[in-house]
């Protein structure tokens, strides 16, 4: 998928574990894992807002558009 999720990088930079983020934002580890591994089909704005608030980052830090080379 052209949209890459860099949640793992941001977690590493902030030294926050997935479990801790899950508790802070109120989203299950399973769902965060779906997002982290790039399997999510859609992200709610509320989820994005919660993650950015807790990790003190911008959506652009989490989501990057990488077009496929034809």
């Amino acid at each position: 998928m052209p949209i890459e999720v860099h949640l793992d990088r941001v977690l590493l930079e902030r030294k926050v574990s997935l479990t801790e983020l899950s508790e802070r934002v109120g989203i299950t580890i399973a769902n965060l894992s779906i997002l982290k591994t790039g399997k999510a089909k859609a992200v709610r704005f509320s989820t994005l807002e919660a993650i950015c608030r807790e990790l003190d980052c911008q959506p652009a830090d989490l989501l990057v558009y990488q077009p496929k080379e034809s």
Partner: protein
Amino acid sequence: MNTRLIKVSKVVFDVWFWFALVGVVALVAVAPFVTTIMDAILENVDRQVSTGFLGATVELNLDGLDEETVTNLSWAVIAMLASGLAVSVYVVHQIRRALRSVLEGRAFKMENEGRLRRMAYAIFSLVPIGWITGTWADSVVNGHFSPNLDPQLGAIAAGLLALSIAEIYKAGVTLADEAELTV
């Protein structure tokens, strides 16, 4: 709903859907053209037709036909077989892609899906119109209403119905899949 089951059933339905779509498009686009040519060539030839659930078998008595007519007939048959072969190769290729995607855990996307879909819908829209017009014209000429219900049209109608059901199911499965993978 189990995500893996959704994905596998989606692939199976995608493959079946496109098999039906390409097969019916080929039938609508090619068969009437070739059968018209064959009818013109064979108008004075002794024929016996036996029909079954999946189509018709034609036995021809070619004794007494000149060489040119036999040649034209041969080319018409070859054209029909070649188009059928091309469709089969295309469908098999898509099935292989779909199965490979399943094994590798990737999503399957039909090649040229949008273009094929639009073309197919445009052709399909002509089928009921043509059938209604032909039936009306036939009733005017013959003076009574006699719908043409030969096996080819039956197959097309069944194909269209199957496509509609497949489309609705596909849309439902896609929605379920996206709902489960929305975070």
